[in-house]
């Protein structure tokens, strides 16, 4: 098995809008080793969210290859991609995207409905994930009864409950105040450091980037700067 979580080889992404073809990125190469913690920064429209979508298998590339642990994922069909995402990738969004009709525990349990785990095992996994993000006592609360930071922590618990190898985070602190944002970033760092998760964060927040092992700056579809942090 490859030591890389993700490898992009000459990946291009273009949209046709009317008579115009818009290139998001062209011939992009990228290696993200397993257990890496990468921040992807760049101005709006630079293609960083599209890149995250491509890595998560929720958007198709126009050309090139996307490999996960040495296996191509850009050639998988919809059903195969669903199963691949359920098994390997956890998503964390800027606006949490929790189901308002479900409690915290039920939201966290959602990905486990796709596994063969029995209800008792599912509840055990959910309790572990909520404890890890410090919300063990809020399991029966609905999203509307929680603060933004707490909702984002529930979203993190949902992303890790099925023990995926990779966490893809799209502006995870974009809707949070500084203190709460730092708590969330600490959790992501902990997951990378002590639970060996590969964490890829798209962000505008320099503080968020500071928590990463390295930062990639994407502008007009190319990496213009690569910073390796100590």
């Amino acid at each position: 098995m490859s030591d890389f979580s993700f490898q992009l080889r000459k990946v291009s992404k273009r949209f046709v809008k009317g008579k115009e073809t818009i290139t998001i990125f062209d011939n992009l190469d990228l290696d993200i080793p397993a257990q890496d913690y990468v921040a992807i920064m760049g101005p709006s429209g630079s293609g960083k969210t599209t890149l995250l979508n491509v890595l998560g298998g929720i958007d198709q590339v126009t050309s090139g290859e996307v490999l996960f642990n040495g296996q191509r994922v850009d050639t998988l069909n919809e059903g195969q991609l669903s199963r691949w995402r359920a098994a390997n990738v956890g998503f964390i969004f800027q606006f949490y995207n929790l189901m308002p009709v479900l409690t915290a525990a039920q939201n966290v349990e959602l990905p486990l409905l796709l596994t063969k785990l029995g209800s008792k095992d599912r509840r055990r996994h959910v309790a572990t994930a909520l404890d890890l993000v410090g919300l063990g006592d809020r399991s029966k609360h609905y999203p509307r009864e929680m603060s933004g930071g707490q909702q984002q922590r529930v979203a993190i618990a949902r992303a890790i409950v099925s023990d995926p190898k990779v966490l893809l985070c799209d502006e995870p602190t974009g809707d949070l105040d500084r203190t709460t944002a730092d708590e969330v970033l600490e959790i992501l760092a902990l997951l990378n450091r002590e639970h060996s998760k590969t964490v890829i964060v798209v962000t505008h927040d320099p503080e968020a980037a500071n928590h990463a092992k390295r930062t990639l700056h994407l502008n007009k579809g190319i990496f213009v700067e690569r910073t390796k942090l100590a």
Partner: protein
Amino acid sequence: MNHALLVTKNIGRRKLRTVLLLIAIFIAFLLFGALESFLQGFNAGQNSAAADRLVTVNKINFTVPLPISYVDRIRDLPGITHATSQSFFGGFYQDPKNFLLMFATDPQAYLQVYPKIVLPPEQRTAWLNDRRGIAVGRIVANKNHWKIGDHIPISSSIFSRADGSHSWDFNLDAIINLPEDSQRESVVLMHHKYFDETVTFARDTTSMIVFTTASPKLNDSIEKQVDAMFANSPYETSTDTAAAFNKAFVAQVGNIALIVTLVVSTAFAAILLIVGNTMVMAIRERTREIGVLKTLGFSGPVISAQILAESMLLALFGAALGLGTAWLALAATRRYLEALIPGVHMTGAILAAGLGWAIVLGLVTGAVPAWSGLRLRIVSALGRR
């Protein structure tokens, strides 16, 4: 938690909308259950009519009488086993609104033409030997709280007696129990002889002649034979099977089946549009959530199945409420309804058809949103482009 809980949570997320939808579905199936049950009642006569039983009435229409002598002439034809007269009496008990389906007949011959009526021997003997005796269907007896041995005054809205009164005294000698034939359980039968000797007009006549043949295969030829026998006479006849006669009788009220079909179809079409439109809107509101579920690994078919399950659950629950209420209402008023329309009740077939339509409603209203859920692209759902 499981997929079923997720479905019910989604249904309950906008309670007012769900309640209004359920009310709409409830009304449609209440109408369906009630109207189909009425239709079943109207058709009961056709369904219970024996294949070998024929009815002869005046060619003009059944309200114009035939000579009573026609009974014997018909009975004497080859291939005919039994024949009886049946004169409509237009009876009512105490109040003209308490209408009775009452006929004057020859008791002995009537029991031969309707061999499924088996009276207890003592009741049979009492009725046959009592000129003032009546045999009463179970439904009528129950409705009016009549019992064997009662002396019952019955009035006629058509006939009068020589003394100018409209009331006749009867003895209740027999009760007809025949659950498979609600029409027979709804009649009151008096002796034709008592009728004939007391009425001021229409003596020696009958409204219709009911007779049985040796085999249903003979029906066609016997129908023609009977009508040919009385052709060019002052009282020409029209002969048909009992089923066809009952159907024609019901048709005089109107094309009940067409009315029921139109009302139910209109209700269903309206509900289909309401529920379908609401389901589409409900799923559109959840586009982002569906995108999130797909991101988590829920496949298109799983999402579609959940949406279909929502629409099916709504349809089935609403239908069960509607059909259940119709059943309860019919059961509560059956005593009164059966006196007017014998056989009106919700059968298992109506219940099964209702649930079948509920499944169709659920599938049709869920089809478009389920398809949308299946085809929805995650990137579009999350509003990322």
